[in-house]
């Protein structure tokens, strides 16, 4: 699997918009969209958990080229909390209930749009990593918090 590319982020943005999927880029991929200089492997999407959004998401994933069988599509429709897709044109993590964020609606109201990409607010990306409390997050949080201070200062 090759690295995730800008063109693929555009495909997600455009196809998800076509189907009306409500989602946000989250995690380090979200922070990178906001300007954070670091490396990551794949894109993480925080997806609204609802029957309608699940149906839209499944249709969008099929259009993007993800090969979902009946059971996997049912998982998407139900909105299992964490779905890891490596059966499509690029790797994608779907997160319906990220640690440290109370509701999708709240995150949606605080979203940042970058070139049409809906991105979770940096406060919530950091809150999610703090709540997950993984070794790899612990090591990157200090730099991510420093970036938040810089980012706040730069925003209009």
């Amino acid at each position, binding site marked *: 699997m090759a690295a995730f590319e800008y063109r693929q982020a555009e495909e997600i943005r455009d196809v998800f918009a076509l189907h009306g999927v409500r989602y946000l880029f989250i995690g380090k991929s979200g922070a990178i969209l906001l300007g954070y200089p670091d490396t990551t492997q794949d894109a993480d999407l925080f997806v609204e958990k609802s029957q309608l959004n699940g149906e839209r998401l499944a249709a969008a994933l099929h259009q993007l080229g993800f090969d979902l069988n009946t059971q996997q599509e049912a998982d998407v429709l139900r909105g299992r909390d964490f779905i890891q897709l490596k059966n499509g044109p690029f790797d994608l993590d779907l997160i319906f209930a990220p640690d440290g964020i109370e509701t999708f609606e709240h995150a949606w109201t605080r979203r940042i749009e970058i070139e049409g990409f809906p991105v979770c607010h940096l406060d919530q990306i950091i809150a999610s990593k703090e709540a997950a409390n993984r070794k790899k997050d612990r090591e990157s949080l200090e730099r991510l918090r420093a970036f938040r*201070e810089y980012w706040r200062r730069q925003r209009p």
Partner: protein
Amino acid sequence: MTIGSAAVAHNRRHVGLKVGKTMSNDETLEAIPADWLAEFEAAARRPLKLRMKYAFIHTYKPVLDDAPYRSFETMAEYRKWCNENLPDWLGYGSI
């Protein structure tokens, strides 16, 4: 120590940025290590497309990359699976 932690350790001369701490803008930027600040500013000068080209890399992650699909009913189940199945050095385990 996981991937990237050496770089973090290198940058530990940092005075500590706390959520809710009241500082002026200048004080805030002064609190950021100079090398990090230089990286943030360099990134800000690059267009998003170029930033993403530098940011997304692919390296094989054992176990994690060995199945085309996984799903978990809850995040707690996912964290438990990571703790029990992934090599510690990948850094996915809870602290």
